[in-house]
């Protein structure tokens, strides 16, 4: 490998990390309230509302059923509007967020639904409002599950970001496609694969470490 190629790969790593983390962050800004709303309006929720739940639920299903590669192309006009171009890692964040948000909403919903109903009842009996229950009970009690969900989400987004390489999305996936696939440079292909694996391992390690540290349910 030439030093140019090495520099390119290093830049690729940063682009991948950048896309993944920024998309996860923005994804949670949308997905977290969405998931909370799903839990709260659900049948067993704090404030059941069939109509609102139905809309949020169907919307999540629709967005989740569009394959990411198609989503990339579908949202191009929006990407153009927001970023001003449709290639490069910043542009890729737009479809990444749109794909990740409903996934995150579902993760959050299932994490929050795990919280023991008795604990919620205890909070209600103490006079807590629904908002207080969401912030002081649900999110706190479900934090381990939420962190696990976030770890899975990061891995998924990282995978998606590599896929965006097919349309010039930047990052390691982009390099793997251009050098490994179009130019048959096996060494670069394998280097990017190994780096992607290492990145997933790293995120998983950090996620697991945080959730273990946070979990006080075991002696």
């Amino acid at each position: 490998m030439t030093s140019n190629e090495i520099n390119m790969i290093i830049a690729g790593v940063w682009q991948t990390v950048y896309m993944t983390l920024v998309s996860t962050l923005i994804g949670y800004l949308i997905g977290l309230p969405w998931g909370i709303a799903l839990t709260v309006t659900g049948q067993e929720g704090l404030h059941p509302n069939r109509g609102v739940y139905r809309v949020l639920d169907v919307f999540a299903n629709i967005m989740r059923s569009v394959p990411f590669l198609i989503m990339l192309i579908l949202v191009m006009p929006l990407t153009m509007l927001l970023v001003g171009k449709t290639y490069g890692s910043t542009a890729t964040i737009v479809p990444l967020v749109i794909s990740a948000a409903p996934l995150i909403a579902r993760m959050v919903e299932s994490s929050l639904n795990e919280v023991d109903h008795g604990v919620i009842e205890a909070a209600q009996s103490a006079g807590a409002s629904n908002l207080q229950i969401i912030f002081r009970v649900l999110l706190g009690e479900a934090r381990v599950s939420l962190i696990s969900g976030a770890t899975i989400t990061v891995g998924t987004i990282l995978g998606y970001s590599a896929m965006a390489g097919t349309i010039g999305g930047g990052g390691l996936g982009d390099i793997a496609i251009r050098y490994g696939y179009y130019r048959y440079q096996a060494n670069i292909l394998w280097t990017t694969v190994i780096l992607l694996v290492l990145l997933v391992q790293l995120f998983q390690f950090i996620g697991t470490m945080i959730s273990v540290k946070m979990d006080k349910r075991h002696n």
Partner: protein
Amino acid sequence: MAAIIEVKDLYKTFQTKDATVEALKDISLQIEEGDVFGIIGMSGAGKSTLVRCLNYLEVPTKGTVLIGGKDLAALTSSELRELRSKIGMIFQNFNLLMQSTVIDNICFPLLIHGTPKAEARKRAEKLLETVGLSSKAKAYPAQLSGGQRQRVAIARALACDPRILLCDEATSALDPQTTQQILELLRKINRETGITIVIITHSMNVVREICHNVAIVENGEIVEQGLVEEIFTHPKSRAARRLIIEGKDPDQWEKEQEKTAAHGSTVPELHEHRRIRIVFTKNSSYEPVIANMILTFQEPVNILKADTKDVGGVARGEMILGLSTDKGISDRQIAYLEERGLAVEDITDIAAEAGVN
């Protein structure tokens, strides 16, 4: 003293997909300030629903609940939340925040009602002292035993200085010794603060141990209520009598009934006897009544059970006798006992049913 809790003509129906379940039917009761009031019944009798109506965790279908004279139905949701802070509640499964420390659990009700953090902490530490867990402030619930967790739950329930404490099967998940300790703690809190305690339980032992008044709930209705001492001595309803003989828990009773039904009684000839239950009060304990009765009638009696029980701090002797099959003699024997001031009760039907022998 005025009634702090007043329930009038309360109904609660649950609508399931294919049926309407009447969980509570025409419940009326009054609980005096400072009382320890038991609500006893078998599982599924509706007692948990009833206690949840007292703080509107369940909204009744019909009827009124007055707390300190205030109709809960007339309150706005923020007024209701404010009132709930004055009604503490503890549960069978403790329902603590598992990801928060003991002290944070106790601070929770204070913080949600806007108490400054430092002040909440100070109050929580004092409560921990009351329940005897000062050393566990920084521990997490998972590190505590069941009894300790319930102590934390009690401290949390008392955080906002409530006038009422609702206990929903609070000792059902605990072993007998821990149950004793928790009941002792509740008794102490009742004595020292004058707080009104409502105890939901399926165990007659718990009621006998701590309650002054009791309501017996069966199939969503109150079948009997009054002083524990009175009901223990003269139970009127079938449910009360079943609960009191042998002091068995109703669930256990059911099981034994099934067992008897399945295998038949081991001593069938005893069923021919007439069964009575007598309760000795203080005065009746001096004379050897039973021995004198046997001498008077020259007729043997069968002592099936004899026991002393602590009813609200007073020792009560209890005896179950099998009398002669001759109704003439047994009637006179009962009259003889009643003349001597004993509470006598014919339990032949119930005893036969449950196979007491």
